């Protein structure tokens, strides 16, 4: 080969390697498929298709929500910005046709034409088996059921083939709402039992890989970590037949690429993008960006109240005055959050949660309080955050660190890997940290029960214990169950006031859930679980 020829062939090949691929020709059949297909891109995907499974992650909740039915679900109302928002107080039947609430039980009549994906009818037997499963498998599902005082299999009674009764162990306002969350989904019991084994009596191995429900969609292909493909269930009776025939959900780890896919019109919908991207996309107007506050959710700074210096309420108040609230809103969130600080001085406490505190950034006041507490020269501490949410947590902690430095408080930032975060929270040893808590059930007493009650649950990250607080919280729960509004209002105001006076945790803001979608995608609804409900969506 002559050198020149060699060179020629080499450069030819090199050019070939970078030549662009011809844009794929889109046939009309494919265009149709496109208009009935929803292409979702997100960072992570499900690790289990069954919410009852061991360690099912949050993307797995989305599959369960869309592929399984529950007895009941929530009605919709118009939320902020006109976006449909689930109505906390109104329920409708999904598999149930008729709901009768008695004093100590509730009876559901099932829709007679409801079928599972394999064609088997949905019967009372399946409902009982599924609810028994939820309270028996342990882990998260059982825990969530107990939040509505649903703990024993004996509570679920088959009356006849199409009637189920749920008996109450005690009066609890959260029982009915807890039956509408993701966990009490109805599973095809015969199919699951067929695939169960002695070691796995609830058939969890089978439902991990396949959906065995009666829901609006069924998973037809799942490649873990890569994609989930769901097809519409043409026989769905839980509601009006969805418009979207097919859902393709692809995992795209790179946030920049997800944005590029959206902006080029290749993907229909995405969440989990940096706030700055959402803000820019909102501004340029090519896409429809929905931002709604987390229901019953707050990002906060927590302090361990069992050890000095944070065992001193004066120090905690000083901290609350030292937070760079507005800077966090502007520089970290780009405005995508509801401030939870700076309520007017004379503003009365609402019977609502979340609501802003009366704290605002006031370094002089903070300094004075710190001096009063005997820390005029500050102290040393560490501030910890979960690296899984570093996008928000890291700049937030840096701002707090800077602010505290002005008081002579030397805070070292401690980045905790996501895998380790819960272990660290559980130990309850971190002196200062930031975290988010958001309750599925949107009731103040639910939030306070987990976060401030002396039973010291994992969410009471501050190890806060106060007999007075417990009295308010327990009182509100009882008052809610018995419908004693006056007592309820007094107790809610009581625990909110106490939480703000004692400030074991400093509320910063109510985070937003942000979703970006193409302009022709309609029907997005906000749910307490903050995941997508494909059943109402459509592509114009």
């Amino acid at each position, binding site marked *: 080969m002559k050198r020149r020829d060699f060179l020629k062939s080499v450069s030819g090949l090199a050019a070939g390697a970078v030549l662009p691929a011809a844009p794929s020709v889109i046939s009309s059949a494919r265009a149709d498929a496109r208009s009935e297909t929803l292409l979702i891109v997100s960072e992570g995907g499900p690790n289990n298709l069954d919410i009852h499974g061991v360690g099912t992650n949050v993307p797995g909740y989305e599959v369960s929500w869309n592929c399984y039915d529950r007895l009941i679900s929530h009605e919709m109302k118009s939320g902020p910005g006109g976006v449909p928002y689930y109505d906390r107080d109104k329920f409708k039947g999904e598999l149930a046709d008729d709901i009768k609430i008695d004093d100590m039980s509730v009876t559901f009549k099932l829709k007679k034409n409801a079928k599972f994906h394999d064609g088997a009818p949905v019967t009372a037997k399946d409902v009982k088996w599924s609810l028994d499963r939820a309270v028996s498998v342990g882990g998260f599902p059982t825990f969530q059921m107990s939040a509505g005082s649903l703990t024993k299999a004996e509570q679920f009674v088959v009356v006849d083939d199409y009637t189920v009764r749920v008996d109450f162990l005690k009066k609890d306002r959260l029982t009915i709402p807890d039956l509408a969350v993701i966990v009490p989904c109805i599973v095809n019991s015969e199919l699951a039992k067929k695939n169960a084994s002695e070691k796995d009596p609830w058939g969890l191995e089978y439902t991990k890989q396949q959906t065995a429900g009666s829901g609006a969609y069924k998973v037809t292909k799942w490649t873990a970590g890569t994609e989930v493909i769901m097809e519409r269930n043409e026989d769905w009776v839980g509601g009006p037949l969805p418009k979207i025939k097919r859902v393709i959900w692809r995992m795209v780890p790179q946030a920049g690429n997800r944005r590029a896919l959206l902006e080029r019109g290749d993907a229909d919908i995405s969440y989990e993008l940096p706030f700055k991207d959402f803000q820019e996309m909102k501004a340029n107007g090519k896409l429809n960006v929905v931002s709604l506050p987390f229901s019953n959710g707050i990002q906060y700074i927590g302090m361990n109240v069992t050890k000095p210096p944070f065992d001193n309420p004066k120090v905690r108040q000083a901290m609350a005055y030292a937070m760079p609230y507005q800077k966090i809103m502007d520089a970290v969130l780009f405005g995508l959050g509801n401030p939870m600080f700076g309520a007017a001085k004379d503003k009365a406490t609402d019977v609502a949660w979340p609501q802003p505190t009366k704290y605002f950034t006031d370094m002089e006041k903070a300094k004075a309080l710190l001096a009063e507490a005997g820390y005029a020269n500050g102290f040393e501490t560490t501030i910890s955050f979960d690296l899984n949410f570093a996008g928000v947590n890291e700049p937030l902690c840096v701002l707090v660190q800077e602010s505290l430095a002005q008081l002579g408080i030397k805070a070292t930032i401690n980045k905790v890997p*996501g895998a380790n975060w819960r272990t660290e929270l559980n130990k309850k040893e971190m002196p200062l940290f930031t975290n988010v808590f958001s309750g599925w059930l949107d009731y103040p007493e639910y939030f306070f029960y987990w976060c401030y009650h002396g039973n010291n649950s994992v*969410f009471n990250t501050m190890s806060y214990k106060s007999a007075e607080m417990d009295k308010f919280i327990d009182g509100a729960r009882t008052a809610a169950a018995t419908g004693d509004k006056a007592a309820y209002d007094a107790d809610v105001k009581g625990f909110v006031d106490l939480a703000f006076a004692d400030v074991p945790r400093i509320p910063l803001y109510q985070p937003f859930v942000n979703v970006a979608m193409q302009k022709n995608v309609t029907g997005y609804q906000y749910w307490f679980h903050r995941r997508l409900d494909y059943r109402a969506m459509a592509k114009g």
Partner: protein
Amino acid sequence: MLTMISKRLMFAIPSLIGVVIVTFLLTRALPGDPAAYFAGPAATKEAVEQIRKKLGLDKPLIEQFFRYTNDLAHGDFGNSLTTGQPVATEIRNRLPASAELTLLGLIVSVVIAIPLGVLAATRPGSWIDHLCRVTTTAGVSLPVFFTGLLLVYFFYFRLGWSPAPLGRLDVFYSAPPTVTGFYLVDTLIARDFEAFRSAFSQLILPATTLAIFSLAPIARMTRASMLAVLASEFVRTARASGLSPATVIVTYAFRNAMLPVITTLSMVFSFLLGANVLVEKVFAWPGIGSYAVEALISSDFAPVQGFVLTMAVMYVLLNLVIDILYGVIDPRVRLEG
């Protein structure tokens, strides 16, 4: 030759045993408690304990180890908790994706780098030598994720020439029936030319990214090795005998310069296979690199162990292939075996 192969394989066994033990211990030393992680956001202490029992993590370490090796002996790599799938299946499904990408990247890189190196060596100081230097410097100093993002930005986002960085196939194509696991081959076997084109166009950008990155060592090694050989006496003799420059370079010099290049190639290949995780992340490529990193982040033992073990086995096999290749290229090596 056969004795050499079996001898090599024998030597590999102790290293594999070492890998099994070390990965087991190292993954256990990872920070984080998988039980707490998988018990979910709302777990109580009891729930965490329940999960720990379910995962067998409450047993003593030595018992866990024997259970693990026993499973391994039965071809069971355990279950990944993050993806919920058996690790063996996952690796089997993902390895071809990584291998196809890495191989193609390597081929592109070889096709550019070797001629570039040869030409640079035959004309030291010329423009082609400078080009070689600039290309290799650029290739090695640009991090892969950066090159990848840059290519995506221009060829997909700005120009729209390249398909969406959404993995191995366009969303609306279905994967061909698995024969080799390489989409380029499988689509051809299935005679699905549209899918072939889709798979190929999806491969171009990530393969180019990898090629740019791996260009440098190959081109540099080719150049250096060629320079050394060209300066040797037998080349001078060949030239003096009046053989054409092409014959001298291709037949005499190039063949002799190949050995170090092959070594470099094997290093680059195994290195790329593990290191293309960033490329896989950028292009949403369902390969094993990104799988292993995900697992590592969530303290998911089984996939990490499976990944390291697979890599170790592949490395052993690759070394074997290289040794055999040596024998083919240079018969003197065979005598030593």
